[in-house]
């Protein structure tokens, strides 16, 4: 463990490490990264994109020669996870965009991950092959069948080493269980089940069974005219396999216990911050919609992201969050135009660092923000090509609202709202972060002293 890890003090300096993806003026929509996730050891980093493709990077072994350079991530495997579909019965176009990837903990030599689009979840096995059998009797070395008349001896094929090949194969396809669009998947701590959540329902699956799933939450009203909220995200507790949470478009979080009943429509806990009625506006409900919910590694807290803030809640206190962090409060005076260009509906994610002491989330203009829960310090950094020299230290950025703009500050009106950082990931135990900036993946590390 590196000393000082997990503490964002003025001594923590973030450096550019790598950038993946093409540098081009016009971004192809299929290349837009839609999800980023480290596996449980941090050895692998997976990305999913709008084109339905998954790319997995593997951290290279640290070499003794280059002590000051921590292991870099290189391409390990890539495959087409989902393809575009059209449901002719419902006239529904199903995007191939990968909404989420979640890794399973490693139990043998192979790696397993779940990837999902709007309708179908798939379990992928990623395995290495470094040997192949040679010396078949009936086939020659190119695989062509030999003329039986020429076969006069019998031999036993032997395994010979070959160049490492990484194969990805779909092991399970969990389809046809969601009427609405899947927004979340979460692997249970029992490693036997997982859940998938759409706008109105949450299903529980067993990894071995693809033709059935249990519906554990159903908030669809009998009359759709009465619909007032939808499910926006869901996650299992990291240790208690009976507990999960789901967030709503109204800014509330419900914690459910599967031991209480088969259908968890009645929550065990209900987290909601009381709203000051005098603050209510047309935008109140929209900006309170929670776009992401994440348990801390300890399982004691949950973090939620709404349009303007990140909040930390103590599971033992339902009536208000214990911490609220302003991500980009200056956008309050821009809500009208953000509503018109749909940016107000952008779904930002949030992540914890390995020790739950620092939280991170994205913003616009390729900015992302980190908040240290202990020191209460925060920093704004930028994922940009200008700061892409190896080991270049990232300079903190500042946004200025009205008044005098200092030389290195940027004004709210100059922010580029098309450059949004919706997806980020933090290595489970080290200060290495992956930030998706549209079609590019940036990897940053803290400075090695």
């Amino acid at each position, binding site marked *: 463990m590196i000393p000082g890890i997990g503490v964002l003090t003025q001594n923590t300096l973030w450096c550019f490490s790598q950038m993946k993806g093409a540098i081009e003026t016009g971004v192809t929509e299929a290349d837009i990264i839609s999800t980023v996730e480290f596996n449980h050891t941090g050895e692998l980093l997976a990305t999913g994109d709008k084109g339905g493709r998954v790319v997995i990077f593997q951290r290279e072994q640290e070499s003794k020669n280059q002590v000051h350079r921590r292991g870099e991530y290189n391409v390990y495997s890539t495959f087409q996870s989902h393809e*575009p579909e059209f449901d002719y019965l419902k006239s529904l176009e199903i995007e191939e965009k990968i909404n989420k990837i979640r890794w399973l903990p490693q139990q043998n030599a192979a790696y397993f991950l779940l990837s999902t689009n709007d309708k179908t979840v798939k379990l992928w096995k990623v395995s290495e092959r470094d040997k192949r059998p040679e010396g078949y009797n009936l086939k020659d070395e190119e695989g062509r069948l030999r003329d039986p008349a020429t076969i006069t001896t019998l031999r036993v094929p032997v395994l010979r080493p070959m160049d490492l090949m990484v194969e990805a194969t779909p092991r399970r396809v969990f389809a046809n269980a969601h009427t609405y*669009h899947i927004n979340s998947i979460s692997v249970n701590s029992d490693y036997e089940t997982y859940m998938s959540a759409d706008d109105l329902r949450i299903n529980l699956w067993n990894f071995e069974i693809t033709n059935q799933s249990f519906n554990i939450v159903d908030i669809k009203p009998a009359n759709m005219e009465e619909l007032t909220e939808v499910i926006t995200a869901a996650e299992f507790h990291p240790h208690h396999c009976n507990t999960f949470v789901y967030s709503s478009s109204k800014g509330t979080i419900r914690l459910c216990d599967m031991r209480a009943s088969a259908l968890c429509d009645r929550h065990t806990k209900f987290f909601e911050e009381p709203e000051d009625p005098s603050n209510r*506006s047309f935008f109140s409900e929209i900006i309170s919609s929670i776009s992401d919910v994440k348990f801390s590694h300890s399982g004691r807290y949950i973090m939620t992201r709404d349009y303007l803030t990140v909040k930390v809640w103590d599971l033992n206190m339902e009536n208000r969050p214990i911490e609220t962090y302003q991500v980009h409060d200056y956008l*309050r005076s821009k809500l009208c135009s953000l509503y018109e260009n749909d940016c107000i509906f952008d779904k930002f994610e949030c992540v914890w660092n390995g020790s739950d002491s620092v939280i991170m989330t994205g913003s616009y203009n390729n900015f992302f923000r980190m908040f240290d829960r202990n020191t209460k310090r925060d920093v704004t950094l930028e994922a940009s090509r200008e700061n892409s020299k190896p080991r270049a230290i990232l300079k903190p950025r500042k946004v200025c609202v009205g008044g005098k703009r200092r030389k290195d500050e940027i004004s709210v009106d100059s922010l580029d709202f098309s450059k949004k950082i919706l997806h980020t990931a933090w290595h489970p135990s080290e200060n290495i972060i992956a930030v998706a900036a549209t079609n590019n993946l940036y990897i940053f590390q803290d400075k090695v002293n």
Partner: protein
Amino acid sequence: AGGPGCVVCYWLLGDTQEKEGILPERAEEAKLKAKYPSLGQKPGGSDFLMKRLQKGQKYFDSGDYNMAKAKMKNKQLPSAGPDKNLVTGDHIPTPQDLPQRKSSLVTSKLAGGQVE
């Protein structure tokens, strides 16, 4: 003002707003209502939620389409209004209205795939 944690010099604006007693969101709301007077007056379930649930829905009736084509002959088919998602009623969707679906069986550029 300053220090490593400071990001926004918002207190300047905040002070003025407090004096006037107007929340920034209210000012923004007034702007929006001025532009779109009918906003928020539809009865029934929330507009945003319904739109969200209907994502991906495409309506097309080949019979309507061919009849309309036959009737119009030389005239231009009416094109979609601003809200391309709600394609029902008088408007007949045309192939030009539907977003181009490009097959993405090309290796991702993150993995070193070709830049087109």
